[in-house]
């Protein structure tokens, strides 16, 4: 028997979703439950400490002496901002912070770990850099952020002699953990489960070789239906 090419129209799609609705619903609920349990009970608390720095490239010694900033300095700083960020995320700088933390506070974070904990972002249309540190306890988060901003000027000047770093916001101690977003993640889990359920529904439909209507039977075999019984 020839297999006729069959396309799915909107009605067919609806019927597939309706037929496998319990698969979709159950997987959505499983997804939501999984995310809820994961975020609520299995994800540890973490704390954030952040600081803001202003980095300016002072090319003109005379302007610098006078404490002023020229328009070219501002423009140069903006153009170099991405470079500043990369410099501050470099392995050597993070290793330096790691060594310093060990010495002063006895905390043991490797450069690799610090790379995952520290986020350095540029504020759009400005020369401001925000440093955000995420750690398992608020003290560590604050200490790391503090070390970072203290060592940043020296690191910047090692690379750009004319760079000047000013701390705008010092890192502060936060005793409240960051919101883990239980509700949002649960909803996300529900949606992801639902999407997976829909995909699975179509896979099951494709694999389903059962007869579901007399019309399909007649169309395939060209043999009439004598009658249909409940």
């Amino acid at each position, binding site marked *: 028997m020839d297999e006729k090419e069959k396309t799915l129209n909107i009605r067919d799609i609806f019927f597939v979703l309706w037929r496998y609705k319990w698969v979709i619903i159950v997987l959505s609920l499983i997804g939501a439950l999984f995310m809820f349990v994961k975020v609520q009970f299995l994800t540890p608390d973490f704390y954030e400490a952040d600081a803001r720095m202003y980095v300016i490239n002072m090319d003109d010694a005379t302007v610098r002496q006078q404490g002023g900033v020229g328009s070219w300095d501002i423009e140069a700083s903006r153009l170099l901002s991405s470079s500043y960020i990369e410099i501050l995320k470099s392995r050597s700088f993070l290793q330096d912070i790691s060594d310093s933390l060990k010495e002063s506070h006895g905390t043991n974070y490797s450069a690799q770990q610090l790379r995952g904990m520290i986020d350095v972002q540029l504020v759009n249309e400005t020369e401001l850099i925000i440093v955000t540190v995420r750690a398992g306890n608020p003290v560590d988060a604050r200490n790391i952020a503090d070390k970072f901003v203290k060592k940043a000027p020296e690191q910047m000047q090692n690379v750009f002699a004319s760079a000047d770093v000013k701390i705008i916001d010092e890192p502060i101690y936060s005793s409240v953990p960051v919101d883990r977003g239980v509700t949002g993640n649960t909803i996300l889990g529900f949606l992801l489960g639902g999407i997976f359920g829909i995909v699975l529904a179509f896979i099951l439909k494709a694999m389903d070789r059962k*007869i579901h209507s007399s019309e399909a039977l007649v169309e395939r075999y060209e043999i009439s239906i*004598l009658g*249909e019984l409940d």
Partner: protein
Amino acid sequence: MKLRTKKETVSDVDYILSDQTNFETAETYKTIRTSIMFSLPKLDGGKVIGVTSAIPGEGKSTAVVNMGITFAQMGAKVIILDCDMRKPKMHRYLQIELGEGMSNVICGFSELKDVIRKNVRQGLDCITAGEIPPNAAEVLSSDAFTMIVEELKQTYDYILIDTPPVTVVTDASVISKRCTAMVLVVKNDYTTYDMVDEMIKRLNKVQAKIIGFIMTNSNSKHNRYGSYAARYKYKYGYKYGYK
């Protein structure tokens, strides 16, 4: 107030046509009867209709018994034969003893007239499967079976034969050679296309004349004969001034 202590179950007998059967089901069987009658060639003597399915559990035996009852209702002489000698069921549906039947007659242990159960339902006769033989396919392919069918054709207008599933054993293919036509029972949401492909392939191999499908477990609105009939009657009556 009666406490329900165990789950009520539906037995096979509940599916057999009776005074309690709903209008839609009864009318559907009449429709099947009409369709079959118009599909059969004009022949002298009885017409032999084989009923089979691809796999067990599709409602084949129930359909045979009910079709027999329906054919008998129109005044025809009808007999149903249970040729599923491996798992006979007809005697259960008709609530009669298995006793001696087809296998006994074919093998020469009984006379045909002795195994015919008269009027199991109004106007309907039947022959049960009889004792289960070890070689059912050989028994059914014997000349004796052919002669029995030919003899029954002299007496009855319609002979309905309940056969085993086609894809399970070869019995149905063997029986189909003695049949005027074959009816295939397919169960909705149960039978697969692959099974039906195989069933038709095997029947085509023996050049069986397939006249149609009966679909069981159907959820189609087309089997709502009651509402369809009401609409048809209204339309017909309106057109011809029926009051």
